[in-house]
């Protein structure tokens, strides 16, 4: 390997030598080529420069030519004519410049005006859009209103037609009533004649009897003078038995026929409830009275002292009617919550809740032995409830909303009801049939019905501002009670008879209490201590209580009792 290495070095040296020789030849021109390239570069640069200079020379020449031409022109213009023309032209130029300046100004003004007008136009556009919107909205509402108007017109037409029909009916009914009145007057006249004839006959009979008696007396005296005296016959008894009021007619209410003097002196005035009072009723014994109100409460008050005895709660809506039973241990309340409730007065605890009506219960009454309750409702039914069983035993469909019900006989088999449709109906509760429908007696809805203490008469109160007393057996009107200034205040205003049946009492819409005599049907007395519509009056013994809608209750008596006497 050393040899190989040596030979390699030898080759290398030899080859390097040869390369040196080669390069001596081949690189002989290196300097020349470099110089050449430099020269070429310079040449290129000079050529470029020359080109540039030629260009600038060219432009200089052009400029020179131009100047020369200008000089020629200027020389030509140097002549006097040309100077003059030049001056003219200059003047013209000046004037044109002025004109142009003017035009620029005008243009400026116009531009400004254009801008202004554009602004105005934009504003107008905005306003227009708004107006269009407004018009659209108004048109829309106009359409709606026109539609509504059309509907209302239709409604009015319909109502007009209905009114026409009703008026026709009314006219017919009034005619019918007129005829009936006439007939009644004939009958009354006939009756009066008969009565007169009957009295005359009685008188004749009495005269005859007296003559006979005298004859007998004379005979006796003659005989006495002749023999011992004998017993006189009981002739006066027979006379009495022929009187108009038969003592055999038993009073089922157990009330004595005390002669009533009119309680017209306000002895107490009580603000009873927080809300409007709807009803008032005195107990059978006349020691307490109860009021029912919109505040869902029933309050029991003492008649003598006017003190609150208890408050009965449980109703969910306004109380429309309160009623005591015959023994004064139970109280019945009818309410707008579709139920009638029963409280025990001794404990003040509720005993029954009579639910089943599907409308407001406007009236509820006990039967005399407190075994049953009758209730009338705006759901157009009267229901009879058995208190032993605690459920409804009969439902009578009355075809009209019931404002008030009352019992007409002792066992509660006959019921009278006053209705929203102005009619009075009489029912047999055993069969559930309508015994009689009394029509044409009132022109407004009947707000109360009340039997007289002897059960032969029935008093109705109506929104036509009249009261009527009807005979229960014949259903004939015995008298019509009305007065100037008497107005029935509410749909549930209750009127009542005096305990002896000689008077009728009712309260007006202005708070005045009216007393009518049943004999002649004339106003006997009026009394006023209240201002709101009277919703009910109740008369037991010699005390009348009246409740006005506006929360106050007044106790009326026959003797004045000053408020200072109140024991508190």
């Amino acid at each position, binding site marked *: 390997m050393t040899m*190989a290495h040596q*030979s*390699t070095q030898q*080759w*290398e040296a*030899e*080859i*390097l030598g*040869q*390369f040196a*020789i*080669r*390069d*001596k*030849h*081949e*690189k*002989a*021109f*290196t300097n*020349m*080529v*470099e110089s*050449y*390239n430099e020269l*070429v570069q310079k040449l*290129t640069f000079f050529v470029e420069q020359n080109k540039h200079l030629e260009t600038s020379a060219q432009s200089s020449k052009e400029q020179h030519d131009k100047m020369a031409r200008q000089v020629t022109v200027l020389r030509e213009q140097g002549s006097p004519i040309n100077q003059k023309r030049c001056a003219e032209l200059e003047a013209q130029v000046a004037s044109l410049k002025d004109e142009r300046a003017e035009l620029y100004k005008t243009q400026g003004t116009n531009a400004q005006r254009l801008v202004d007008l554009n602004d105005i136009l934009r504003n107008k556009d905005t306003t227009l859009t708004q107006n269009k919107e407004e018009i659209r909205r108004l048109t829309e509402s106009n359409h709606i209103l026109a539609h509504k108007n059309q509907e209302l017109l239709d409604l009015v037409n319909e109502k007009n037609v209905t009114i026409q029909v009703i008026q026709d009916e009314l006219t017919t009914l009034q005619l019918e009533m007129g005829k009936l009145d006439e007939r009644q007057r004939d009958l009354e006249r006939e009756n009066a004649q008969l009565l007169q004839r009957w009295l005359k006959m009685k008188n004749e009979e009495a005269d005859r009897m007296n003559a006979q008696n005298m004859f007998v007396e004379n005979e006796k005296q003659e005989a006495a003078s002749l023999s011992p005296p004998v017993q006189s016959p009981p002739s006066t008894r027979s006379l009495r038995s022929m009187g108009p009021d038969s003592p055999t007619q038993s009073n089922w209410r157990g009330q004595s026929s005390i002669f009533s003097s009119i309680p017209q002196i306000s002895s107490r005035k009580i603000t009873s409830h927080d809300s409007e009072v709807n009803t008032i009723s005195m107990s059978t014994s006349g020691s307490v009275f109860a009021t029912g109100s919109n505040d869902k409460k029933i309050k029991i008050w003492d008649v003598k002292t006017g003190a609150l005895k208890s408050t009965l709660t449980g109703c969910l809506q306004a109380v429309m009617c309160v009623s005591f039973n015959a023994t004064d241990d139970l109280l019945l309340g009818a309410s707008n919550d579709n139920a009638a409730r029963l409280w025990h007065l001794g404990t003040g605890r509720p005993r029954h809740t009579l639910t089943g009506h599907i409308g407001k219960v406007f009236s509820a009454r006990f039967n005399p032995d407190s075994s049953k309750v009758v209730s009338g409702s705006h759901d157009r039914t009267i229901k009879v409830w058995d208190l032993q069983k605690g459920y409804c035993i009969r439902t009578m469909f009355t075809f009209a909303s019931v404002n008030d019900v009352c019992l007409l006989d002792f066992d509660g088999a006959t019921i009278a009801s006053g209705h929203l449709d102005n009619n009075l109906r009489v029912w047999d509760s055993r069969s559930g049939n309508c015994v009689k429908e009394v029509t044409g007696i009132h022109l407004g809805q009947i707000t109360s019905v009340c039997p007289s203490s002897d059960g032969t008469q029935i008093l109705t109160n109506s929104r036509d501002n009249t009261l009527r007393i009807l005979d229960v057996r014949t259903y004939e009107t015995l008298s019509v009670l009305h007065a100037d200034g008497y107005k029935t205040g509410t749909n549930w205003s209750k009127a009542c008879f005096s305990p002896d049946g000689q008077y009728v009492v009712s309260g007006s819409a202005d708070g005045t209490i009216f007393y009518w005599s049943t004999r002649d049907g004339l106003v006997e007395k009026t009394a006023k201590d209240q201002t709101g519509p009277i919703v009910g009056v109740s008369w037991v013994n010699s005390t009348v209580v009246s409740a006005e809608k506006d929360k106050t209750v007044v106790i009326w008596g026959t003797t004045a009792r000053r408020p200072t006497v109140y024991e508190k």
Partner: protein
Amino acid sequence: MPPQPDKGKTPATASSSTSATQAPYNPIARVIWDGSIPIQFSWDKAEAAAVGSNAVESFFYEAPRCSYFSLLTTHVRKHFVDMALHFIGDDAEVWYDYEGIPLKWHYPIGLLYDIHGLQASGGNATKGSLLPWKITVHFQNFPADKLIKSQAIDSCQDYFMSMIKEADYLRNGSTKKVMNMSKSDQTQLWDGLWSNNYDRFWGMNHKLVMNDGVMPRNLPIRIYLPENCPVIQEPISPVDENNQPKSLRRILYQSLPDLFPLVETGPPVATAMIHGITPSLETSALWAAQNMSYPDNFLHLVIIIK
């Protein structure tokens, strides 16, 4: 004036060269790399007359022996375009001839000079009488029958890389060594050659020619004979049957026994020229292949008949 690579490419090559391994010191390779030939480019007179430029000066240029004409075309064309007004040449149409013979653009310039200049004159021009080498430049009528068309720089690079792969195949029986190089390493070879950067090129080429110390199967050698004889390229083993390294003479004898007898009986009939010199024929062929190859990894032997 050194060859100026395209300005756009210079920064990229410069940045990648910093990472390249430093080339080992080798004076032979260095002197071969630095070899250059002065060339006088003259425009073909007929073509110059056709565009109206009668007297266009020649262009002198000192070209590296290892470079290719394709890499010079840009400079040459620019010169003539600058000189002759209203003339626009096209790089793709430029071709060169020497004494009427078109020069193959895919041969290194040094090899072309050795073949066309020195071989043709029988080796007598070593004194430099042929210099500067006079080359005629053509901008038209590309001789497609004699030269490979499209000698653009990209084609030249492809050709160069295929020569390297061929040499690798001869050495190892496969091109795995070249193909396994990264793209940047492959580019480094060509960029080093193009930018005339010795360290950059040899930093990479060293691994290829030394073959990692493995004895190559065959040596990449081409032998060029005068008179347009076909190029001789045969599988040449670097060692003989006794496992001794072959000398250049032995190899030449193997291919051309008439011109290169094993024992000289008289004055030599022919000599072999590499890079313009005639090394001793006793030189080891393996050493020569490793140290005196052209950048395309081939040992190009130009035979000169006395």
